[in-house]
């Protein structure tokens, strides 16, 4: 495993830099995500696409991070690896003290189930299942007994103010409501991170704001949130913004630094 920390991205704190340089060592418990020299290449019909060229990222518990970048920057690949849907060709990925980059299929499935709550752009609810059944799904795979499953799913739905619509199917719900069902599903297993991929991509701006308020509330109550987006407006809801370019981290700043850099004019409240 090589260490490719050639230049430290703008905004990196010395504390983060130290964690990222400690290759091979399990990070301290407050670091929920640490990647070191993460590389991912794809063979696209003979042509090698280098989607990630050495990504070092450290996220502490309770952070609310947006990952930005133009298309092709590698943010989807990074999000897939962070979400344990994909594994890197090289580098380490520590999630909640576990070296995920070395894990096999079943172990990854378990990590996805216990540690990660996904929220997708297209909601990805099961169309034939009720909101309640959708939210129960991760608990089914966790082996939780039916009665407890129902209770916890109801709780999660109430947290997103959908306690009255638990028996509706996705096609009977509005876009915002569907995304809130998806958030309830992501939270029901009490994951280490909430991982949102363009969570407002399919929503109008009012509904987007509504969903962003849900995220902010979650961040306020201590949930670690990582959100992938290409919209600066949405990214600026986060408290830290990481920008990817060409498979590397180009900048890693606080919200204030990010907003100041891209110009306050672009950012309308």
């Amino acid at each position: 495993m090589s260490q490719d920390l050639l230049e430290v991205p703008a905004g990196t704190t010395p504390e983060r830099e130290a964690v990222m340089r400690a290759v091979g060592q399990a990070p301290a418990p407050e670091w929920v995500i640490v990647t070191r020299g993460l590389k991912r290449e794809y063979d696209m019909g003979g042509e090698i696409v280098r989607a990630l060229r050495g990504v070092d990222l450290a996220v502490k518990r309770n952070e609310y991070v947006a990952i930005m970048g133009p298309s092709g920057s590698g943010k989807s690949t990074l999000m897939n690896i962070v979400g344990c849907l994909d594994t890197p060709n090289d580098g380490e990925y520590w999630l909640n003290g576990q070296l995920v980059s070395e894990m096999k299929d079943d172990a990854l499935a378990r990590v996805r189930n216990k540690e990660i709550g996904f929220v997708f752009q297209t909601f990805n609810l099961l169309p034939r299942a009720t909101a309640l059944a959708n939210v129960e799904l991760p608990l089914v795979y966790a082996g939780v007994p039916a009665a407890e499953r129902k209770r916890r799913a109801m709780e999660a739905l109430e947290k997103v103010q959908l306690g009255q619509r638990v028996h509706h199917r996705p096609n009977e719900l509005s876009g915002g409501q569907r995304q809130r069902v998806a958030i309830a599903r992501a939270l029901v297993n009490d994951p280490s991170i909430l991982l949102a991929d363009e969570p407002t991509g399919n929503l109008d701006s009012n509904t987007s704001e509504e969903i962003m308020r849900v995220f902010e509330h979650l961040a306020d109550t201590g949930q670690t949130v990582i959100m992938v987006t290409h919209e600066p407006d949405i990214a600026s809801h986060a408290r830290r913004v990481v920008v990817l370019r060409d498979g590397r981290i180009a900048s890693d700043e606080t919200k204030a630094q990010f907003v100041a850099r891209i110009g306050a004019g672009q950012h309308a409240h």
Partner: protein
Amino acid sequence: MPFFEAVRLALQTIRVQKLKSFFTLLGVMIGVMFLIAVVSIVEGMSDYVENDFAAKIIGTNTFDVSRIPSFVSNADEAQWRAWQRRPRLFDPDYETVRAALPGDFRMARVNQNFLPATVPGLRPRSVQAVSTDATYFDIKKFGLTTGRAFTQQEVATGARVVVIGSEVASYYYEGLDPVGRELRIAGLPYTVIGVIEEQGSVFGFSMDRLAIAPVTTPLTRAINPRGDIDAITVQAGNRELITEGMELTREALRGFRRLGPSDDDTFSLTTSSAALSFFDGLKSKLVLFGTALPAIGLVVGALVIMNIMLVAVSERTREIGVRKALGARRRDIIAQFLVEASTLSIIGAMIGAGCGVGLAKLIAAVTPLPASVAPWSLVAALIVGAGVGITAGIYPASRAARLDPIAALRQE
């Protein structure tokens, strides 16, 4: 994922797609239906043979002495030629057997063939003409509704008397008392002295078209122009005595026919157990052929299920991606699709079993074939159903489990 969850999920999927599911399980349903029907008919026949047929045709605790075995399940050309070369049975053979067996054995010479019978003014009809000894009625346990059987004295004197079956009586003497009336068999007149109570039918052949006359009447020559005997039926006092009786008979006949120690028997001894083993051979063939066809139905059913499951996997690629993202392991996905496929085919098998029982009962009702539904066949049907589903589901399920969650989630 717990098994119960998988079944619930499968039932939910089936409920949502009723029509598609119905067509999916049609193949299994038809296969199992015919399987159950065939097995029930064969079982019914077998029950019938064991309980009724053997006693009716051969009699209980009896064996037959004859030139050619009474029941032949498989014999080649050479075997048949060898049998044809055997000497026929004549009265001296009968006397030899009678002399060899103790008094507690009953025996009767039996000749039978279908011969035309008539009374003046009625169209001739074929009856099952039997010429025999008086003991035949005891061996067969024939009861009489009217009149009497003939005696051994009448046999000795060659009295031209006949005892007829119930169907013969109702055909020729509708509304009349047949006793004392005349029946012409093969052109010669006989006086009816008794009517046998109804015997029913075996595989659709009426057992009531009988006309039984003494073996000493010209009926014997009408049946066997050479005057030989078709068979000597011997009845032992009980089951244990059959073997002993057969051994005594064999020794006596071999001695009478001057067979050397290395010569084969020139006669056959057939017991009702031989008849049963003949039927067992027939039964295994019936089961083989009778199940081959439904088996093809099941294979087709399996292919249909496999196809539908493959379509389901590609239709539900995104669902599989979501499930994997939420923590489903490969084996959870495999279990989901296997349970779905086998739930489908077990439901098909259950419906098929119901229809099969109905079909068997229907066949039994409209044809002479008996039917008896064996409980094991219903259990077997469910196992077959599950087996078909699992077999058909393996490939689609493993395809689903191998899907890359990222690609699956991206699919529209």
